[in-house]
């Protein structure tokens, strides 16, 4: 382990183009997918948590089921869609970062929506009552609900980002782990383990952990400022 840590540091410091590319692709994919999922999932979660409409309970159950949707199955479905013989082959998304983002967004939206729902649910009645008292319209009420949940939303974002960074099943199937193109940290670790290069795999694992640590510190700093 000690030498693996040294190796990891050497890899980072040597600025190898291969490692740099893996980190860039990983960041591009996970930041994009988590942000899109947040942008789509939070409004959905606010809707689930604050509005009442027919079918809400069923939607909620479905959403919660999809929160636990196996990534490999999601990857498989995307593969079948985007594959050279699949119905969406015209989009040319197989073996691209964009395709990986699509698969991850599909996985992350239910998580972002479900988590938002549970935090909105807790505050929605009180906020709604206050807004009604102040004579605010629907839009202002929803905005206020989101504002009030912003602390939780950052936590949800950290969770979604962590999931996107750590995910391997869907991205390896959709991305194909092509060197310099769709190889991310997790698939690179899989490949290095498969080829017996445990040292590089460990080094990548350490870097992945540090990357998430940095992103979490940044997000937490943002959260800390919100609180004040």
């Amino acid at each position, binding site marked *: *382990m000690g*030498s*693996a840590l040294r*190796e990891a540091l050497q*890899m980072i410091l040597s600025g*190898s*183009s*291969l490692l740099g*590319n893996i980190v860039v692709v990983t*960041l*591009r994919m996970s*930041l*994009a997918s988590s*942000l*899109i999922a947040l942008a789509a999932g939070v409004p959905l979660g606010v809707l689930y948590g604050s509005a009442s409409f027919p079918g809400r309970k069923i939607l909620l159950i479905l959403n919660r089921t999809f929160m636990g949707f196996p990534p490999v199955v999601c990857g498989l479905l995307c593969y*079948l869609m985007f*594959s*050279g*013989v*699949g*119905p969406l*082959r015209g*989009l*040319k*998304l*197989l*073996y*691209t*970062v*964009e*395709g990986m*983002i699509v698969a991850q967004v599909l996985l992350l939206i239910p998580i972002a929506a479900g988590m938002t729902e549970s935090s909105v649910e807790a505050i929605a009645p009180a906020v709604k009552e206050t807004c009604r008292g102040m004579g605010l319209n629907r839009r202002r009420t929803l905005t206020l609900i989101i504002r009030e949940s912003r602390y939780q939303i950052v936590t949800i974002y950290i969770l979604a980002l962590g999931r996107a960074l750590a995910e391997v099943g869907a991205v390896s199937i959709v991305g*194909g*782990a*092509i*060197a*310099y*193109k769709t190889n991310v940290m997790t698939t690179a670790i899989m*490949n*290095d*383990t*498969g*080829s*017996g*290069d*445990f*040292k*590089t795999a*460990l080094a990548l694992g350490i870097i992945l952990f540090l990357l998430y640590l940095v992103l979490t*510190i*940044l*997000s937490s*700093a*943002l959260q800390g*400022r919100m609180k004040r």
Partner: protein
Amino acid sequence: MKENKMKRVMAFLMAGLLAAGVCACGSSAADSSASSAASAAASKPQSTVSAAGSSAAVLAESSAVSEAISAAESQTVSEAAGGVGSVGIQILYEKDDDMKNTYSLEAVNPDAPFKDADSNPVDGVAINSEGAKALIHWLTSEEGEKLGASYGKEKFGESLFTVLEKAPVYKGEIAKAEEGTKTIRLSTTTSVNDSGLLDYLLPVFEKEYGYDVEVASAGTGKAIAAAEAGNADLILVHSKKQEEAFIEAGYSMKLDGYDAERISFMYNYFVLCGPSDDPAKVREAATVKDAFKKIADGKYPFVSRGDKSGTHSKEVTLWPEDLGITTDQESIANYTDWYNYSNAGMGACLMMANEKNAYILSDKATFLTFVANEGNVES
């Protein structure tokens, strides 16, 4: 706060990047990443293995292996418990004709009977035949074959691949990349990719002819399946039986100037590895089949890839026929006490064999990488 601003800037950047990516919907985004990939690939990444090159050269001599390993073992007994143990397995048997491992190229036929997941025929599958042709031409050209045969000398002290005597030599013109033929999708096996051969060869080809080769690697079975799903322009694999089925089904096309669809051009040898004390005494076996019989008779632990890869396909041909071992999982139901059907990559299986003191069939390149890396972890 500074971090806060950074975070915002990063978020904006990513959002912008993504919007551009989504608008371009793949193609143009793929181009831009392709050009960066080409330039990055041109700089030819030095593998981290090179540091251990000298020790690997020593280890390649099988007589020296046991000495080196026992020395390594005695130094690192305490670390072995930490998971990444020292290498206790070594090459026990190699260079039998039955262990010859022939690599072949096949160009995917654009008019192949492609089927979707429901077995309905699919038309208009995009295959870059021109690109596939150019890569096959180059790999079988004098330059390509010479370069391929030299691979491994620097890293492991010996060539890992040999050009077949009967390999075709292409002497004609090789087409340069054009707008629509730039990206070549090569579906290959993990053993080829893991050996580092393609990292060694492809940058030369890409630089000279302007192509961008995307390499997807999986076990031979999966590599062929990807081609059958229209996700590859050519395949580079090592399992004759599976290749013949692929050609039989019409997925490959014959190129002008070559005798057949299956273009065999290089080979190396599989190696039978196992614990250095060799309880099954395979070192004394007359043939590799005899060695496998000894393992089966004594029920010594054996780790199989179990993933329908080329290595797996080869392995099942080496067992005594009356055992009835095939690549199907059910066929080993009666041998689970010693036969481990693991469904994993070569490196992971070597790790498993090392832990269990088991026998294993490996391609030589991956085994040498495995030994080289383990040696380095312990040092």
